[in-house]
């Protein structure tokens, strides 16, 4: 009887897990605002051809370096191109590169982190390699790698993934060490479950939350680093609009025409800040020790 009562209550009135997830995440106003801001930026980038007022590469030398006005809301650059339109299209490259770096560094880092944390013999090897890579400053290592690989969007993704993968390895390894000592992993081993399945089902599922949190941080770092690389001329070729290349090519006009660099810079700050705040929110929510305080 009891069971029927509790089961029907579960299926009827309990909100879905996804609903609950966002309800808890948005309990902090700042996280909600950050999600909103990021949502707008992402939406604008995805819908760029429809929402941008001008073509991003439409040159009108007659209207070069105009301050923000009622036609070009955020002004024009040195070729008379509309800053807002370039920012909207630039978001595609910046966010796209960020997302690709997250995907690549996460998958590589997770695999090596799981192996380092679970297979005793591989731990020292993988971690010393990761330490060696982390000992170099991020941007220097990235510049070095792009210099070797050649400047292109794909190579920037590759270089930044190599730079950030060791961070993922560290986080995943630490969580794996904790989880693989738990009795349910021991129980699986006592059953003769394969190592592959233990890692996939028993370890990975239980280290997913720190990985998710790390993903948001790496997204933010990657957006910043892409801008930095492009600014230094070691990133995406300058003709491709990204927030970083816009600042790079506009810097020499910044003294008289601040809007050329201010607005792309603002886009970078807003995107990175939102991602960091969302990451913080996720971490606090998923950390059971902090969960009660929220």
């Amino acid at each position, binding site marked *: 009887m009891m069971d029927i009562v509790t089961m029907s209550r579960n299926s009827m009135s309990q909100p879905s897990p996804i609903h609950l997830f966002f309800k808890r995440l948005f309990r902090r106003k700042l996280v909600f605002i950050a999600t909103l801001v990021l949502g707008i930026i992402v939406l604008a980038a995805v819908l760029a051809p429809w929402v941008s007022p001008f073509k991003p590469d439409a040159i009108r030398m007659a209207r070069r370096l105009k301050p923000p006005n009622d036609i070009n809301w955020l002004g024009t650059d040195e070729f008379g191109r509309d800053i807002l339109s370039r920012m909207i299209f630039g978001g595609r490259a910046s966010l796209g590169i960020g997302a690709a770096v997250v995907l690549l560094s996460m998958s590589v880092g997770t695999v090596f982190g799981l192996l380092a944390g679970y297979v005793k013999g591989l731990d020292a090897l993988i971690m010393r390699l990761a330490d060696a890579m982390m000992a170099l400053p991020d941007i220097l290592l990235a510049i070095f790698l792009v210099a070797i690989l050649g400047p292109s969007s794909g190579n920037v993704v590759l270089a930044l993934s190599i730079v950030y993968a060791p961070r993922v390895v560290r986080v995943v390894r630490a969580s794996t060490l904790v989880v693989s000592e*738990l009795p349910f992993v021991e*129980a699986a081993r006592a059953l003769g479950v394969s190592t592959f399945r233990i890692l996939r089902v028993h370890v990975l599922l239980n280290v997913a939350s720190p990985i998710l949190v790390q993903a948001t941080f790496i997204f933010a770092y990657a957006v910043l680093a892409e801008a930095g690389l492009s600014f230094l001329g070691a990133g995406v070729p300058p003709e491709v609009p990204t927030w970083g290349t816009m600042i790079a090519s506009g810097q020499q006009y910044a003294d008289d025409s601040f809007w050329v660099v201010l607005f792309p810079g603002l886009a970078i700050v807003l995107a990175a800040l939102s991602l960091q705040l969302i990451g913080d929110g996720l971490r606090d929510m998923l950390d059971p020790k902090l969960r009660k305080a929220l």
Partner: protein
Amino acid sequence: MTKPLLVVSNLSKEFVTSKGRLRAVEDVSFEIAAGEAFGLVGESGSGKSTIGRLVLRLIASSGGQVRFDGQAIDALPERKLKPFRAQAQMVFQDPFASLNPRLRVRDIIGEALDTHAIAQDRRTERIGELLEMVGLQKAHADRFPHEFSGGQRQRIGIARALAVEPKLIIADEPVSALDVSVQAQIINLLQDLRARFGLALLFISHDLDIVELLCERVAVLYLGRVMEIGPTERVMRHPRHPYTRALLAASPKADPDGPKARRLIMGDIPSPLDPPSGCVFRTRCPQAQSLCAQERPLLRQEQEGHQFACHFDLAREGEI
């Protein structure tokens, strides 16, 4: 005694730590017959859980031998252990950490069936049967571990162990994390299942009363070494080792008219990093003499199957 199911001989385990070598288990030997319940008792740190893990080869031993059904388990390569994994299973102490919180009960028990390709054509039914066997319901299969109480979770853990139809179950303090009222239920369940399937049981516990209730034979461990071993009845009623006596005296008895004098042992168990010379118990033994520091007492026979490791025969020299 019939041909033993499990033979553990001279088993040792040494952990290399940053502070030196830690001898967790040293020279432990015992046998368990098919269908027999064998108890391992001792204080925390006595190496009893380590022995359970060594027997299942969840950790590698440093010396000695484990034979199961005539086969040397510790000599097998990992990939050849699978048949053994279906024969010997474990029930864990912490019911909250022994079930993967992300899996439904169906998948927790199902994993055992899938790994050994058991009942694949009637998987759902079999999971339901196993749940009912341990006193739960078929409908519980769709739930997650956090929806259950500690006792219910322990039942799920037992169902998982039973899924592969083992001959031996190692129960590592299976009730010490549970309320007393629930403890009795789980003990009864283990006893029922043992009778029903002829399971052998290696019962690891610090609770002498439960061991007396459940086990036919018992070994008393101290600092990784066997102090006394024999039929539970003999060991409990006529303990020959001072440590066994002290343990029995320290365990509370619901008998107001019983002897009041308690000979409690003082202090803590010494560090296994630096065990005392000779007899490891001598630092806390009320009867220790100079011989105890020099020579390690070997197990000696008291009666058929009852052995103890002490230089002095308490019974013959009278009560000290």
